């Protein structure tokens, strides 16, 4: 069974978002998503300074099996990317919640409330299976 931490919010397209103490939002893909993808071998990250709107393509994650787009769960300006994933994309498989993709300065934190909570996301994953 995949791990769905209760302190995060989730998009139906399998990204997670975490509101940090400094007001920024960290984004990654869920454990369920990494499990479905299999061995991750390449990650394409957004650029620092890039403005993203919720639902917009923010990058790509490729496993041995397939390529999959990453959609930004919330709107904002990209302020950091996890460069570690460029050299070690397998971090996403090792721990999907430690292997974050990017961090943004949200333009509207209320957007977080529109995302799924852990229980709703779990239900969505179960319906998928």
């Amino acid at each position, binding site marked *: 069974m995949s791990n769905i931490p209760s302190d995060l919010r989730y998009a139906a397209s399998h990204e997670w978002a975490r509101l940090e103490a400094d007001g920024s939002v960290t984004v990654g893909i869920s454990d369920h998503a990494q499990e479905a993808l*299999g061995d991750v*071998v*390449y990650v394409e990250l957004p650029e620092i300074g890039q403005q993203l709107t919720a639902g917009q393509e923010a990058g*790509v994650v*490729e496993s*041995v*099996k397939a*390529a999959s787009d990453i959609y930004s769960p919330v709107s904002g300006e990209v302020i950091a990317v996890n460069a570690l994933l460029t050299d070690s994309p*397998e971090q996403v498989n090792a721990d999907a919640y430690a292997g974050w993709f990017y961090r943004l300065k949200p333009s509207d934190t209320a957007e977080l409330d529109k995302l799924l909570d852990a229980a709703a996301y779990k239900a969505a994953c179960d319906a998928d299976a």
Partner: protein
Amino acid sequence: MGQRTPLYDQHLALGAKMVDFGGWDMPLHYGSQVEEHHQVRRDCGVFDVSHMTVVDVTGPQAQTYLQHLLANDVARLDSPGKALYSAMLNERGGVVDDLIVYLTDAGYRLVVNASTRDKDLAWMQARAEGHAVEIRERADLAMLAIQGPSARERVAELVSAARAELVQALKPFQGLPQGDWFIGRTGYTGEDGLEIILPADQAQAFFGELIGAGVSPIGLGARDTLRLEAGLNLYGQDMDEDVSPLSANMGWTIAWEPAERAFVGRGALQTMREDKNRPKLVGLVLEERGVLRAHQVVRVGELGEGEITSGSFSPTLGKSIALARVPAGTGDRAEVEIRGKWYPVRVVKPTFVRQGKVLI
């Protein structure tokens, strides 16, 4: 629900992620496809390939029939146990399927693809008209592939003395019966190893013994990256009914001599053979980060465009590789379009890794 091999429950018990492959529920991986790939290159692993179709061809005209059916010439098999790889062509010189044929005491044993089973059997029956042959599918058999540098040694430790002796004695590409097992020193990984065809009701026990002895189960995911590194074609991807073996790096499997042997597709092939502009199948290596995938467009300077037929990440090389059909004059550089951007690739002979060694 798809068809199941005798090992279905064992795959589930081993934690396999199951997928549909040509109508069969097969293991994609048992955790990590990349780890499974390395396991086969470095030591050994076992694959359930029971979905593949085994067909025995017997009868007084079995040889002349297969000489007509196949682009390679079974007359080259001069003693039981010898095997060859061949294409089965249509009249247009396109590939109906690729297969292995072994010469046996009783006749011939063919192993064809799972996804092409119905088509192949119908095709073979239709071509058999007028020949005194019997074509018999062996759905009563299962098949395990044990592949990797230590594969033969590991199998020899688990089987009877007589089977162990055969396993040690087999030459590459040779296959012989021992009791009710048929053991071939063949495979689809570019490593040494065996393919064992055995009664379906013995498959669970033997698979269980291999797993119990610490041999890793390997899924179709690693099977695909292993064969891609070895430059072995996958039917339906690298060639099909609209592709000539001459454009699929299979020219070596066509037996042109004797010239009077009239095999299906010969006429069309002869014409294509003279066409110096026919496309060719090459290997591609992406030096930058990213992953090459089937159907991406390949641009070759002024020569025009080609297409990737199989692409993936190569665990052995740590970068992406592909097979691609490109214009005849393609040199050592090309470009591939990935999500709207063009990436330079190196063009190489389509054999990337063999026997654990990197060849590019």
